[in-house]
């Protein structure tokens, strides 16, 4: 079996030699010997290599180079792929391809003549041209050709329904496609696990190896590793997607740079940083938020008089009930605990008791991380959309929302009541309420008063890390150096605010700015943000329930 690591390989060789071949793919374990800085795709996918596999390994990125260091037991060929595409690069690659051809013939004891390789190359080119045409016409046939050429499973939608979503970036799997499809999208995969890994511009050449080298370097959509600019405009003009999911592997250095162009083109997009664990919950929320469009939401016949919004967050669950006019009738918060469904149910019972209504007289919209667990909800919407709707209801002019929750934080830019851009923190405590909880515990200062306490700081002490692990040791060190609790608290609030300001800049935030989430009640954070952003921050009377309020209002909007 030939195993290759990236589609910048001469597939024609494998077909001509009639040797089974496959690409490495992430499996559910990680290769522990590789440093955690190595890209997550590589760390996992290298585990799929067996000692008996014959490797055709390209130096497609530094992570792949380092992974190769650990594969010395395999029979292998290490292929340098130039980062440029010019005559010199073609010459260099064609020489290496010739060596690879001889290597494979020797390893597999094959006498396949060059004429056979030429025939297979012509076949490959014809099929590939056909594949490009079929992407718009017949996805089922495109799938068959793609699988025949690359021996990989088709990753992407085959039936056109819903909003068209272009997947860009690094290797994506069917889990991501499922999320897009579930959110109402049709996923066209232009990552390197999709058909564009096999589509190129053919060019005349002096010999077969040069022709294959040109094919490899002339990819219609160059990978992020190449020095040339990515031809995203061409793809976007061709497919006119309604949204883009930019998928990158954690610690991949290449694809984040696409964001700059996507922002210029003003196409709704979201970046997913995949660490190839099973925790795709954040990805799901982001993709659903991207594809949600309140205007497109179907109107349904609702006989309810009570519109209930339940926001099941990581730390607390919130409920808001509004009437037909959107007046708030009831709001309540409780801890989510270990059973989000039970907490939501408890709140619902309290609301029904208080307002004296039956379940049939209500319409429930669930939001937050636990929204899928709430089985009695009539609809589910992401917390991003709900926050936007809720805050817009309270402050119609709002342009930016900064929401700081227990486990994550998000910054949303709003235009005419709709989210036009948003970012969320990644999977760490930086910039979240959890960070403040840790600081509160180290400094033995209750969460409720730590903001107020921080404002008493007399000197400006500057820390440091927003990484909870580093912050802990740093705070202990500062205490031992004799700094006051107030000074350290102020520095900690500033650190978290800096992180949020970076997110604010990323979405090009504008005032008026509304701060929501449990942490909005912290006066220290509000002041730190105001000083850094030089704008006045608005905090709603009850900043914790804006998501639930938005959910309740979303239910009201769906009423006929």
């Amino acid at each position, binding site marked *: 079996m030939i195993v290759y690591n990236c589609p910048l390989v001469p597939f024609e060789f494998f077909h001509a030699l009639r040797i089974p071949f496959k690409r490495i793919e992430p499996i559910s374990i990680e290769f522990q*010997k*590789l*440093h955690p*800085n*190595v*890209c997550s795709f590589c760390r996992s996918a290298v585990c799929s290599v067996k000692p008996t596999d014959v490797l055709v390994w390209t*130096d497609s*990125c*530094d*992570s792949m*180079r*380092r*992974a*190769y*260091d*650990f594969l010395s037991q395999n029979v292998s060929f*290490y292929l*340098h792929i*130039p*980062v*440029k595409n*010019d005559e*010199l*690069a073609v*010459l*260099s690659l064609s*020489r290496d391809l010739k060596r690879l051809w001889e290597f494979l013939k020797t390893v597999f004891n094959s006498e396949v003549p060059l004429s056979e390789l030429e025939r297979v190359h012509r076949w490959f080119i014809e099929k590939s041209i056909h594949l490009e045409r079929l992407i718009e016409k017949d996805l089922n046939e495109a799938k068959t050709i793609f699988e025949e050429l690359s021996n990989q499973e088709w990753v992407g939608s085959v039936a056109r329904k819903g909003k068209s979503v272009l997947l860009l970036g690094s290797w994506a799997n069917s889990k991501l496609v499922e999320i897009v499809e579930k959110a109402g999208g049709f996923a066209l995969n232009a990552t390197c696990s999709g058909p564009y890994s096999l589509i190129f511009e053919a060019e005349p050449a002096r010999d077969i190896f040069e022709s294959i080298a040109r094919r490899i370097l002339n990819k219609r959509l160059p990978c*992020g*590793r*190449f*020095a040339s*600019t990515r031809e995203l405009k061409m793809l976007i003009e061709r497919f006119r997607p309604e949204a883009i999911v930019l998928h*990158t592997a*954690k*610690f991949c*250095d*290449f694809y*984040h*740079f*696409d*964001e*700059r162009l996507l*922002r210029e083109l003003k196409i709704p997009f979201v970046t997913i*940083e995949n660490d190839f664990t099973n925790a795709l919950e954040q990805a799901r929320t982001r993709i659903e938020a991207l594809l949600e469009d309140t205007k497109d939401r179907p109107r349904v016949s609702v006989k309810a008089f009570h519109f209930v919004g339940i926001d099941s967050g990581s730390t607390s669950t919130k409920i808001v009930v509004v009437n037909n006019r959107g007046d708030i009738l009831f709001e309540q918060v409780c801890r989510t605990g270990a059973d989000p469904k039970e907490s939501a149910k408890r709140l619902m019972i309290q609301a029904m008791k208080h307002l004296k209504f039956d379940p049939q007289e209500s319409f429930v919209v669930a939001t937050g991380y636990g929204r899928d667990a709430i089985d009695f909800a009539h609809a589910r919407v992401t917390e991003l959309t709900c926050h936007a709707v809720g805050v817009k209801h309270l402050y119609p002019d709002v342009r930016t929302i900064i929401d700081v929750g227990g486990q994550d934080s998000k910054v949303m830019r709003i235009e005419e009541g709709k989210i036009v851009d948003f970012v969320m923190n990644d999977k760490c405590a930086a910039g979240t309420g959890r960070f403040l909880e840790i600081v509160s515990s180290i400094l033995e200062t209750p969460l409720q008063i730590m903001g107020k306490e921080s404002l008493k700081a007399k000197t400006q002490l*500057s*820390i*440091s*890390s927003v*990484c909870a692990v*580093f912050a802990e*040791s*740093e705070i*202990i*060190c500062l205490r031992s150096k004799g700094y006051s609790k107030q000074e350290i608290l102020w520095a900690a609030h500033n*650190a978290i605010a*800096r992180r949020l300001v*970076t997110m604010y*800049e*990323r979405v090009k935030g504008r005032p008026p700015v509304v701060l929501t989430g449990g942490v909005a009640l912290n006066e220290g954070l509000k002041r730190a943000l105001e000083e850094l952003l*030089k704008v006045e921050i608005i905090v709603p009377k009850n900043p914790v329930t804006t998501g639930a309020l938005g959910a309740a209002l979303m239910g009201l909007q769906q009423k006929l």
Partner: protein
Amino acid sequence: MSKKSVAYGKFVRFFWNKPTVALNLLTLGLKLENTRRKVVATTRNDFSSWVDFAALSIVASAFSGEEVALVNLFFPSEIMAGFALKSVSAEGLSGMLAAMHLEDFALARAESIGVSKNTCSFHRAGLGLNLLNMMKNVRAVAVTNMLCDGNVPIFRTIASLYGLKLIVLDVPRNLDEFNVDYVSQQLEQAVYELENQLNRRFDWKKFEEQMKIESEIFEALRELYPKLCEKPIKMHLYQHVNLLYTIHVRPDFHLLKAVRALERDLKAETSDDAKRILWMHLSPYYDNVLNEIFSKDSPHTVVASELCWDWLDWRIDVRRGFKSIAEKLLLNPLLNDARKRAEFAVKLAKDFRVNGVIHFNQFGCKQSSGSIELIKGVFDELKIPFLSLDGDCVDHTSSSSEQFKTRVQAFLEMIE
């Protein structure tokens, strides 16, 4: 990297909302510090003072209004010398910001266009500085994928900011005749592209002068190497970074003066009872606890840094011009697989008779720390203590001095 730099950075930070003032203050600060270092180097006339001066001179030229070429650490600056452009590396600029604890502005600016915070902070801050319009007279942007492929998209973005065509040097992984031709032909092409871009001819005389200076530097270093191994001169940890930076980005007559001074330094009598450490990869450039632990006067001295010696075997042949430069790039022991790098590190460890090896894993750097387990294994077999230390050389908020301290002190106790 000193407390003075941090204090000055604090002062500049105060004016950051007024970019022109902040930039002028930065330029003034660099000018003053550069003058101070020149006076110190001229007065002391020793190796490390000249190296300190040489390193800062490179960075300072980015703010002085001189015509500069923005390059990465391994791009051959000899080409830029032929166009009378001063090479400045993005890594050095990031280090300068970090020394003043001002890197957060540049990092945040890069992040604001979407660059992941998992990308190496040297390149992130380098890009951010350009996005902040801090560079004065950038005339060329050039990059090689030699040791870090994350460089390519960073420099592609930087070049686009100035509307310049990115000069790219693709370096394969093996030294052979074909690859020497391939790289040298690319250098010829780069010269052609730069001639068109700059609208001036490549000056062969200047190029050869640069090659001759380098030849003199490397010949002298090769000659002094055995003596240096026998009796290493005392240097602060950060001075090793200054040395590697100067050797790679602009080995000019300041470095030549340093090497001449080294000969004299080696003749001086010094006591040699400190434990010897080999440093691998880079070290944090901001004021940090590692610089305290490995100071000139510490009982544990860093006697060699891997990246100061990676081109020691390069025999410069001025007559062979670009082919000679191609050989320099292709013979770098870090270019190929980790075993070759380990062999080179073992040679350094044995030559310098070190008591231990510390490898600093720069956050986000895959090529240096990816297969660190393998390199550690090689040293374990030789029973040479090895510490793999994670941290960030630029972003001072993403490492903890207490964690550095505990790990390094435990390691030093181990080799006592």
